[in-house]
């Protein structure tokens, strides 16, 4: 019904009444002339109906034959709108210009959306896309999607699969990152277990293989812990097995943190210069007269895109916040150095020692002419066994 109404509006319709002695004759003659009467409502000596503009002219002749008089009640549709505004050429020119501009703008990319990234930086992906021509303002016809996908996949390295979908004026970039599969020795390959670190063995959990050490033994790095060569007691024949298990040992690990007594570093002065820019595609208009700061500065870039009904428009406000930095000389006393070292040790515990069972942790702060040295000794219990394949030669 909606489509029908749209078609009627495009063709233009006229509501009319036919008054006379025989409106029924008027209906019959109109039908014979193949003139469509929409919603004819009959009364005594009167007929109200609607017809298309093109048919209305022929209807006059039918009315004359059937002896009725036609009266137009209302006019609807596009032909009447055009007729009403035929002297307003600017309106037509504006409508044409609007269509042309929309057509031209729809040939370019308005926004680039990236989904699926996890460890790979969005900025890096965006830079790679830009260097390969996928950027806001790029002409869609100039992008060879398949070649660009291949190039970016090779460029980024950590991407297993990627797809660039140019939908309307948006470029949707979907990617999945490749995961490095850890090297796993096949179970049918014979191997030994060797010590990856030196320490004192506290527990042995060997599932397969010939134990070469016992609890309480001290072992050096690279020492054989469990052998993959077994011998049969009856036949006294040697055979190979895939050794597996855990060898837990008390390990001492030393870490050293050095803090210079006097050091020079760039520190923020507190001054900040903000520059804003209104950008349409690749054309930018500055929104202020602030100049680029002299010397060292840290720039943070904020970009806000205009979104209407969930569609990103190619109009952005880009704000550059430039924080001024200055080279300063800082002297550090023992208390400050200890605090710095404590913080770094805490970070080490969280990020590097998280998988180890720390038994004790002792720290000593020493001092020399130029720096403070913080020695931390960790006593941990950890699995020191690592699989080493047995290479068989023909």
């Amino acid at each position, binding site marked *: 019904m909606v489509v029908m109404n749209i078609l009627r509006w495009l063709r233009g319709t006229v509501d009319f009444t036919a008054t006379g002695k025989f*409106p*029924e004759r008027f*209906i*019959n003659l109109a*039908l*014979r002339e*193949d003139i469509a*009467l929409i*919603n*004819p*409502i*009959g*009364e*005594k000596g009167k*007929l109200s109906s609607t017809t298309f503009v093109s048919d209305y002219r022929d209807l006059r002749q039918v009315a004359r034959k059937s002896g009725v008089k036609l009266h137009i009640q209302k006019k609807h549709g596009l032909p009447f709108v055009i007729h009403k505004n035929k002297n307003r050429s600017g309106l037509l020119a504006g409508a044409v210009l609007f269509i042309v501009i929309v057509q031209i703008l729809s040939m370019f990319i308005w926004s680039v959306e990236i989904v699926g990234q996890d460890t790979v930086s969005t900025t890096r992906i965006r830079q790679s896309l830009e260097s390969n021509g996928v950027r806001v303002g790029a002409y869609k016809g100039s992008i060879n999607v398949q070649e660009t996908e291949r190039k970016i996949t090779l460029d980024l390295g950590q991407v297993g699969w990627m797809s660039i979908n140019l939908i309307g004026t948006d470029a949707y970039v979907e990617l999945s990152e490749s995961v490095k599969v850890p090297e796993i020795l096949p179970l049918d390959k014979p191997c030994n277990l060797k010590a990856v670190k030196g320490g004192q063995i506290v527990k042995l959990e060997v599932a397969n293989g010939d134990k070469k050490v016992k609890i309480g033994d001290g072992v050096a790095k690279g020492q054989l812990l469990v052998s993959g060569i077994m011998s049969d007691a009856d036949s006294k024949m040697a055979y190979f097995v895939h050794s597996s298990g855990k060898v837990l040992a008390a390990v001492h690990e030393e870490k050293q943190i050095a803090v210079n007594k006097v050091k020079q570093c760039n520190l923020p002065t507190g001054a900040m210069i903000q520059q804003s820019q209104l950008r349409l595609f690749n054309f930018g208009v500055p929104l202020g007269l602030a100049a680029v700061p002299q010397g060292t500065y840290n720039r943070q870039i904020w970009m806000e895109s205009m979104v209407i009904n969930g569609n990103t428009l190619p109009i952005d406000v880009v704000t550059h916040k430039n924080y001024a930095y200055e080279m300063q000389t800082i002297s550090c006393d023992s208390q400050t150095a200890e605090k710095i070292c404590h913080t770094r040790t805490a970070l080490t515990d969280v990020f590097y020692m998280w998988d180890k069972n720390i038994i004790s942790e002792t720290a000593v702060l020493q001092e020399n002419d130029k720096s403070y040295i913080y020695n931390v000794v960790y006593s941990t219990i950890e699995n020191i066994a690592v699989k080493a394949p047995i290479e068989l030669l023909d």
Partner: protein
Amino acid sequence: MSVKNGKNDGSQGKRQSFFSPASLAILPFLEMKSNREVTVEGCKGILEYDKEIIRINTGGMVISFKGRGLNIKCLTISSVVIEGFITAVEFVC
């Protein structure tokens, strides 16, 4: 109609020709949805159109639909759809 006029003497062969597909094709076809809507196929023209009565010429007979608020919903060269509250249907041969 021929049965009513007595032209058909009741022989089996002539009855078969009356109900043959060729004969049925020229007869008007009426389809009613209760007393609210009726579709008439084989319409040759509108004889009277009012809110209380609509008379249709089907060639061999005139069919009158009487009722309240009668209205022609759809109109083509050979069929008509009438809606409203139909109280009586009359066949005038």
